[in-house]
């Protein structure tokens, strides 16, 4: 599967201050995200974390750990006209879009009470 994060020019900025182990963990999570309307996946997640006022790795971990099993999905099958779908569980939600090879990539992750 092609890895969008591999050619991301914002990676150096994103990795700044993290240990090698944390960088490896971040790289793993970035592969789960779609670029959306941003210039790159790294630019996207940095902007998400800044806007939400949360530490980047913590935010990526929360999105990664969102368990779709048992979540309400809207629409129940397929995607809206704009290609998105949301998984909702408790006060968390994960908005996704379809990607090649039958997987879904994360557009954004949110908590209703954040």
């Amino acid at each position, binding site marked *: 599967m092609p890895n969008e994060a591999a050619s991301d020019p*914002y990676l150096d900025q994103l990795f700044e201050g993290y240990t090698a182990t944390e960088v490896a963990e971040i790289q793993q999570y970035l592969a789960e995200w779609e670029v*959306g*309307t*941003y*210039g790159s996946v790294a*630019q*996207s997640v940095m*902007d*998400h974390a*800044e*806007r*939400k*006022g949360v530490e980047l790795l913590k935010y990526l971990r929360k999105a990664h750990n969102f368990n779709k099993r048992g979540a*309400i999905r*809207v*629409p*129940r099958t397929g995607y*809206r006209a*704009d290609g*998105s779908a*949301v998984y*909702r569980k408790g*006060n968390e*939600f994960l*908005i996704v879009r379809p990607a090649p090879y039958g997987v879904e990539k994360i*557009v*954004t992750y*949110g908590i*209703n*009470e*954040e």
Partner: protein
Amino acid sequence: MVQVQDKLAVQREYIVQLLGQLTVDYQNTKAERRDIAECYPNSEEEFTFSEELELLTVSIRGYASQVRETETVKNCELAIAHLQQLRVLDRPVIAQFYEEERSRYPQIQSYLWRLDYLRLLVLEYLQMQQSVQPLSA
């Protein structure tokens, strides 16, 4: 041509400033967003207000972030068409909220105005850029 380039530079500066302001505004809506999430039951048929707002936010901020970092966007023509479709009040759940509840949530109301203004600024910027560089991506 020079005048247009100057206008583009000024417009980009507005976009950068507004993007920063919207980061602060978003954080200032926290209490109101929490209240909305508690007061409005989730529908299993459509996105909630919070989910729709989040998706609009990242879609518009994405283009604005590209302009901030690179002075342009990838696939400019597609971006212009997409931005025209991202009108904040075109989303039924947001339009309904705005119609019925905006006076109760002044921070959210202000955030919606500014977000749509950012969309318009980026759209105008890209259209202006295309007028001087019609063949650029």
